[in-house]
């Protein structure tokens, strides 16, 4: 599904290397988690994969279903099935949430040569999905993320994911800013989307999200590299001992 090989990336403005050779393969149907201390390059990895400006790829590759992601525009990556749930979802005053979602769904369908979703069908689907995420009609009408609480913003990200039905989902610290109940709601939303053909890359600081979204593989990232990979037990080890032990062990 997603294959990253020896990926090295500089921050464009500062000429500073952030990713120093990342190797990672996510298989369809699997949930991979990336954990790591602040500044280890986790978010950078998610941005580079989704095509944000400001990063310079200096080496390596990132391929999704045979497509060279790094050669594609952000919208092409999206249409090909890549989705990033933002750590800080962006507020867009003046653009209605519903309009935004319908435009996005249909833009992707158009790019893939599929028929656009009718207004009636779209309404039916979004109402059902929104209900599952406890997103009320008002939130759908309001401008994208404007005046949303932290939890509402994250639920809105998961709603977008549910509507766009991507193949490869990257969740960048989706647990940040969530209380226990909100986290459960978001995790349920993610779990509902788990399927054989869909891969997940869950980026998080803490193990607690992984209590709800059970990973198949856990990676530890530090200083721009994946330094250790293992099963779910690796997340528990981090929770008990912190990163210091693991990092000194691999150093």
């Amino acid at each position, binding site marked *: 599904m997603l294959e990253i090989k020896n990926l090295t990336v500089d921050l464009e403005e500062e000429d500073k290397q952030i990713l120093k050779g990342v190797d990672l393969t996510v298989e369809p149907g699997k949930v991979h988690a990336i954990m790591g201390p602040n500044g280890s390059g986790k978010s950078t990895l998610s941005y580079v994969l989704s095509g944000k400006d400001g990063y310079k790829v200096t080496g390596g590759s990132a391929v999704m279903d045979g497509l060279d992601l790094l050669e594609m525009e952000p*919208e092409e990556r999206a249409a090909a099935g890549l989705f990033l749930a*933002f750590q800080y*979802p962006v507020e867009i005053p*003046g*653009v209605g949430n519903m309009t935004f979602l319908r435009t996005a769904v249909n833009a992707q369908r158009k790019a893939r040569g599929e028929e656009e979703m009718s207004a009636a069908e779209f309404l039916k689907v979004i109402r059902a999905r929104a209900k599952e995420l406890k997103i009320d009609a008002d939130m759908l009408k309001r401008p994208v993320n404007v005046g949303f609480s932290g939890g509402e913003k994250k639920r809105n990200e998961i709603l977008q994911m549910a509507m*766009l039905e991507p193949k490869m989902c990257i969740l960048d610290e989706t647990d940040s800013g969530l209380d226990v109940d909100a986290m459960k709601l978001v995790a349920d939303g993610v779990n509902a989307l788990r399927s054989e053909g869909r891969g997940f890359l869950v980026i998080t600081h803490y193990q607690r999200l992984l209590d709800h979204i059970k990973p198949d593989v856990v990676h530890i990232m530090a200083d721009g590299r994946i330094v250790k990979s293992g099963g779910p037990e690796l997340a528990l080890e981090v929770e008990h001992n912190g990163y210091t032990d693991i990092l000194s062990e691999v150093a």
Partner: protein
Amino acid sequence: MGLPELKQTATEARLAGLTLPEGGWSEAARRDALSRLTAMGLPQRRDEYWKYTKPDLFLDPSEPHAALLENEEGMVFGEIDRLKIVFVDGVFDPDASDDLSMEGVTIARLADSSAADIHWAQDIYGVLEERGQTPVRRPFATMNTAFATDGVLLHVTGKPSKPISLIYMHQSESSDAILHHVVRVEPGAEATILENGPAAARFNKCMEIDVADGGVLHHVRSQGRDHERLAVTHMFARLGRESVFKSFTLTVNGVMTRNECVIELTGDDAVAHVAGACVGDGNFHHDDTVFVTHDAVNCESRQVFKKVLRNGATGVFQGKILVKEGAQKTDGYQISQSLLLDDDSQFLAKPELEIYADDVACSHGSTSGAIDETALFYLRSRGLPKGEATDLLTLAFLAEAVEEIENETLSEDIVGRLQNWLARRR
């Protein structure tokens, strides 16, 4: 005291080819306007309120030229049920116009000087325009009062069931048109006036609006997409007690547009909203000059102007709120913003507040910015192509101004146009 020589020469040259219409009830006002104009002269670049917009093209004594636009799409407001009054290059077209009778309004033509019982118009024609000359001179409006060849006199006495729609067709590449409208909304009456179309190669239009106590007037206009057209327009509105005046203007294209709006709130609890959205690309200069005077208690005024500029386009905003002594509980708001889509475009803003009352709430703001890259990436990451995402953000930027249109059918028409035009320019 005489005029500076340059100003006098330029004024004489510009007026040389014009004839003062004679006879009828407006003649005295026209003669008075001409003498006022001769005394003040037409604007020069050095005049304070023409610092950011060169008056040259409006002063040029030679014939203007503007290529006609091949308009493959239907006219703005085309789908809306309205009473149509059509002018072609400034000349009334009775065949294209509807029958001018409608319940709640009496419609007459300015050119028809023998119109009976037109004293209400006589009380307004040139009168509001002259009131609007202090403290800032608006010579092109005075020139209009003197030389206007036609226009409509709208006497709103009830609540007409349909909007009154002034349609300005442009069919001659060298037309130079001057139209003057007079609107009187009687107490408790309510109407909507629509204006659309480029009108002429060069268009000077003035509208004097008198809204009596409890009257309501909505005004929505779209200035036509012809690229080379020139327009200098004025609105002079006087608002009585508990009256409402809401005006919105959309401008897309046009090498030179100057829209002045002068509003005087003279009765307590009156409301005036004036808004504008413009989209300029390349050889485009657009100027909104607004002056709102609060001269009564507990009045509300809003100025909302948004400009999207690219490829070297220029936007100007000169907006003022004057709160006179005694105009307590004034609620004044003014915002002017530009979205600059590249480094070549510019926005020049001069927001002004002048307040002589001590119990008022007035706010004003002016900003210039580029497309929000973070928002753009967010939209693209959801699959919106860059052009489509930029358009969506552009429309969102203009939304605050467009939302000033109360009628949803009208605002949807405007938004639909903007969507098409933006998409075509991508």
